[in-house]
């Protein structure tokens, strides 16, 4: 082959790629961020450029996605069985933490970034409840081991990945207040896991009866 033909052949691919990239844009001329086009491009069948215009566009995260864990709590219910909403924060009020302070997550955590204080009864006996719960998210490596090994399904991995902050000492140590999120939130971001957990719970209940 003559010198340079391989090179020209290579340029053919780059030229095609440029063309493919802009075809999509022309199809949706004027609409800068197009949802449909975006989905198409990011799929396995997508062609042309993959760039995501973050933060205007964001990639959806899959259910199994994991960053910094949160604690699941059961909301306090009103007389109709509806969760009570805290008017100040707009969040569901904490009825009961699912966590029993068994300590397994803090033992399994590879970088040891979970600190738990177990609650005590007035008589000074240990109670299956956390009095305090800290996670140092500077140290947390988002490995998901805590969620995987918690026997009470009470610690789960979150989907919120925008964690930037102006200060790293106080705000990066999440205490029980920051960590607690209602069970409905867990059900929303982890529908499959939630369904499996519910089914298991129902099976256990049925067995008891």
């Amino acid at each position, binding site marked *: 082959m003559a010198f340079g033909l391989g090179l020209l052949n290579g340029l053919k691919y780059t030229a095609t790629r440029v063309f493919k990239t802009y075809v999509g844009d022309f199809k949706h001329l004027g609409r800068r961020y197009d949802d449909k086009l975006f989905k198409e491009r990011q799929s396995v069948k997508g062609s042309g450029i993959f760039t995501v215009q973050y933060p205007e566009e964001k990639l959806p995260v899959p259910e199994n996605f994991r960053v910094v864990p949160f604690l699941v709590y059961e909301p306090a219910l009103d007389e109709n069985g509806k969760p009570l909403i805290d008017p100040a924060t707009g969040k569901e009020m904490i009825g009961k933490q699912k966590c029993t302070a068994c300590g397994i997550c803090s033992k*399994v955590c590879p970088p040891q970034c979970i600190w738990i204080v177990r609650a005590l009864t007035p008589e000074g006996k240990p109670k299956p409840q956390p009095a305090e719960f800290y996670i140092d998210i500077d140290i947390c490596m988002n490995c998901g081991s805590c969620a995987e090994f918690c026997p009470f399904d009470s610690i789960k991995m979150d989907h919120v990945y925008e964690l930037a902050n102006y200060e790293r000492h106080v705000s990066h140590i999440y205490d029980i207040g920051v960590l607690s999120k209602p069970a409905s939130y867990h059900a929303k971001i982890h529908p499959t896991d939630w369904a499996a957990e519910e089914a298991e719970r129902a099976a256990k209940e049925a067995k008891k009866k």
Partner: protein
Amino acid sequence: MSVTAPVAPPNTPNYNDPQIVAEQIKTKYPDAVESSSAQGIVVQSDQLREVARYLHDELAFDYLNNVTSVDWQDRFEVVYNLTSLERGGAPITLKVNAARENPSVPSLVPVFRGADFQEREVYDLMGIRFEGHPNLRRILLWDGFEGYPLRKDYKEPYYEEEKKPFGSRWDKGHHVIAEDRNPWHDNVQYPSNFDAVAYKPPRDQIQVIDAAQAAAMRLRTDKIVLNFGPQHPSTHGVLRLRVTLEGETVRGVEPIVGYLHRNHDKIGERNTFVGNMPYTDRLDYFTSMANNLAYALTVEKLLGIKPPERAEYIRVIMAELTRWQNHAVALGFIYNDLGAFYTPLIYAMEERELILDLFEATAGSRMMCNYMRFGGVARDVTDDFIAKCKYLVNERLPRRTDELEAYMVGNEIFHSRAKNIGVLPRDLAINYSTAGPVLRASGVKYDIRRAEPYSIYDRFDFEIPTGTTGDLYDRFIVRVAEMRESLKILKQALDQFPAGEIMTGKKNYQVRVPKGEAYGRGENPKGELGFYVVSDGTANPYRYHVRGPSFINLTALNDMCVGYKIADMIVILGSLDIVMGEVDR
């Protein structure tokens, strides 16, 4: 077609059995062997080099896989793993003991040059001297470092407890910021008589050419020593190359590493066995799935368990997807180093994104997968995963591999820059213990997936691509060919993909591993990733060592670069495909 490991002719002794090898050594050196068992052959330290030479020359143990050491508190033990590339099979283990006071053993560099960096690492971290080593200095830590961190009596600045889990976390676990535990918020310990102003580091070794050589080349330029990196975009991370140049020609390269050092080994010994899994992700962060696999295989060896069928298939699929994307990106980076900035690399990255999407949907993270478990995998794959994966493997990736080959390998400028550049001859490649595509490009048909098949690789039909000259061009096309072979394996695995369980036994957060030691390894995209694990029967490993292929491949860099231009050196480094997370550990 199923292919099995090479079988020795029936009348030759089985040299994969340490007992038989020990008997053979005794015929030549009657009092060299102290003892021998399935765990290894213990040799007298004063005869170590002779024994090694005998094994190398006469019994064809031509490849030194791994050098490491164990602190048994009453003595040190240096451990060598040797294989024959011809015969294949599991490596045999050679051990020598060293006294606790002023430990020293003979260096094996005269026999295996691949021992160079590894012995320096043992000296650096364990404090064992290797007599006769040409350049015995610290390698990962700085020269003024106090102490030898892998010794059991060493305590680091933020030392909390010998083993995890730490007692202070539960059930009265008030949070303390780690720096607050140290009075100066400083994680460096200095020697007691250390004077920062007067301190002069020992000079780095500089390779010098002799006068006759210089005269023969009739160069009128001066030699200059150039520090390349550590902050330099073409050194693939924080790597410093101390280059001796004559004009534009490279006369010597000394890689200076350790900028990312965190003592992975020591962290691993503090951790529980389970807790080490996410840490292996961070070795070579491009191939975390494959790292997981090699570690899981090693511990499974000690546990004596096997994952169920479906999990085996998932593991192979993940490992081969990893290989494809690693090679695609490595090739893109080589083009970057050649000066074709980012276009080919970004094309490779795009395909990689799709593979990482699959990892993310299954394991939860794109790069830090933490996916394999002892006896299985963490989560099952969904039908959606299989469908997407099938589309990628059957349609998209083969097409992309062809395209990539057309615009990368077809390019004539690439030919003129890559052919006969950075030649690593076959015997040097073996002697330097290089691994993976680098070894195969030099014409050695050696792949652990064939030589000592692990997981279910013996079921698949695939070739081992090799090069002929061992130049940059060969290292490039071997990777392209390996991408095709990976797709071949993936296709077969997806076709045979079975239903069933993904985990043997129950999930356990503190797996107790029976007493014993094991060297386990896997064919990572970058080469042989080995783990040497010693268990004392508890939930934490007594000794945990990683054989990083990137680190050991770097040993050969000097020989590959000398005589070529400095612009070639960058590409040669790129063709080694190193990742600093694994080099520095």
